């Protein structure tokens, strides 16, 4: 990374259906998206706050990037009202049907167009897909280190790197890493700031660029459905059925009956 340039921070955000207003079609097993409000994915607010914290401490330009339909510019404006400097909507019909592989490829092309990047922040996962794959996948395609599930962050090495607490199921890791790095954020990392009036007014007037597949020089075979090996055959709500049966007789008879049932069920 060039040392003399202004630090470049990217924060990736996603518009998701508002969990409070979303409804479920039980017949088809799909979400009813009509009339549902879109909001910024809750974890992404913590990514925005992390980027802004770094900006406050080290001075930086923070750019928010979102991939989605043109109306996703509302998410960019909201991020800008919190203090993000600029934003880009990556949007093209050719991106429709992207799985996480195609999405990370597309985002990586957009971020490369922004120039040298010191840090990329993503929420740990989006509450609609819940895959938690976009952050790590994006790091791979950008060719930079990735630290996931971060709950504490501290600037080290005189502003050249970060000390991060990565939460795991069985404890945590303390990771020290130099820039550039991609970080995925937990909600315990910080408290997102409230928007400011001045930034809100600026965001309202801002022109948000929309980048198409052509603008980011994307390979057509790697975007949208073409670039998505994931095929969804069907979605359904799992049914949980339970039967109960009392095994009677002497203890020996009960044991024999139990072993028979377990063998039938393929457990033993």
């Amino acid at each position: 990374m060039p040392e003399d340039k202004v630090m470049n921070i990217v924060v990736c955000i996603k518009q998701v259906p508002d969990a409070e207003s979303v409804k479920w079609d039980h017949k088809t097993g799909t979400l009813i998206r009509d009339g549902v409000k879109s909001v910024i994915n809750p974890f992404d607010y913590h990514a925005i706050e992390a980027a802004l914290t770094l900006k406050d401490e080290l001075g930086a330009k923070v750019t928010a990037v979102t991939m989605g339909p043109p109306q996703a510019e509302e998410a960019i404006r909201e991020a800008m009202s919190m203090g993000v400097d600029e934003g880009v909507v990556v949007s093209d019909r050719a991106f429709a049907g992207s799985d996480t592989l195609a999405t990370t490829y597309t985002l990586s092309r957009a971020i490369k167009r922004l120039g040298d990047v010191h840090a990329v922040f993503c929420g740990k996962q989006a509450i609609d897909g819940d895959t938690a794959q976009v952050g790590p996948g994006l790091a791979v395609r950008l060719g930079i280190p990735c630290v996931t599930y971060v709950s504490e962050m501290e600037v080290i090495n005189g502003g050249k790197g970060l000390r991060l607490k990565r939460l795991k199921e069985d404890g945590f890791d303390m990771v020290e890493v130099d820039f550039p790095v991609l970080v995925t954020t937990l909600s315990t990392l910080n408290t997102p700031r409230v928007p400011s009036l001045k930034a809100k007014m600026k965001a309202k007037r801002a022109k948000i660029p929309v980048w198409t597949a052509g603008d980011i020089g994307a390979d057509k075979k790697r975007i949208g459905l073409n670039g998505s090996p994931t095929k969804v055959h069907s979605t359904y709500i799992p049914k949980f059925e339970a039967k109960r049966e009392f095994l009677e007789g002497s203890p020996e008879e009960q044991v024999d009956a139990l072993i028979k049932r377990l063998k039938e069920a393929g457990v033993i």
Partner: protein
Amino acid sequence: MAKVNYFLTEEQQMIVDLAHQIAVEKIIPVRARLDEIEEFPWDIMKDLAQADLFGLYIPEEYGGLGGGCFENCLAVEQLAYGCIAVTTTFAASALGAYPIVLFGNEEQKERYLSDIASGRRLAAFGLTEAGAGSDAAGIKTTAVEDGDYWVLNGTKQWITNGGEAEVYTIIALTDKNKGARGASAFIVEKGDEGFSFGKKEKKMGLRASATRELIFSDCRIPKDRLLGRRGAGFIIAMKTLDLARPGIGAIAVGLSQAALDESVNYARQRVQFGQPIISFQAIQHMLADMATQIEASRALVYAIARTIDAGEKDISKLSAMAKLFPTDVAMKVTTDAVQILGGYGYMKEYPVEKMMRDAKILQIYEGTNQIQRNVIGQALNKEYARR
């Protein structure tokens, strides 16, 4: 929901949205705790600073947004929807800053306003004393010239933000024999020699706000801290209060709206005699009166705030009306809210008992409602004499 169209500009709507967001996300979750332990809401003040709200009423050349009385009313109404103790803390800083905005010289404005606009320094206003409440002319605090200094002696009472604020606008007597022209306004800073604070008062409501005595004992301040001209102290105080009173009306509207929302939501889900209590006319009529009086209050406050911003100079009567009616409504509406919630309303698990305790101060501070009626009555007498 059928809402009255008050024809807000895009920027005014942004102020409403932002202040409401802060009320819902930052104030409501902590208000009961702040009330219980009487904690000064510093965290929320930081949020308000981050949101640029302290700069709302400060001119743009000093880092503010250059808004008027109306913009301030819109903001405090929404904040008061969350908690009026927090809102009073915010509004008291405006009360301390207005004299500098209205009467400060260029040097004073540069020195203080940008820090107040950014929220780096909180302000406060000191007029009231033990023997001078409604009778403001009864103040005893003195300021005597001594070379390049003014020396202040006396005690101010019940000063909101006392001890927490950094910048204080103080009214003190400079010429005891000149009556109404005998007082002057001064800027005193926390840390000035001879300036200290009394104990924090325990209050019925408004418990998250800090209320303290300001004690001046041979407090020496440089001469350039005189605000406006010598002898203009009471004029400065009255102009400041005239500008601030619609804000108290707006706080009352926000508080009343919160009490109505709690009441309707409760009445819709509380079942007695086999049906939700909102199906009973006794409840419906109470709610109908509450909603109507709140909307009337809001319309009055907005119309008068806009009249003030349009440049009307003779505003004492109007600003008294904008304070009087909504605050009396707030007392009634919050009392009725407790009645509708019944036993639950009296319990601290529900927010309406706090709303009722808090509402009472609105009829008392920034001029009791009896004084507001005096102002309106005297203005009527004058107006009709001129006809």
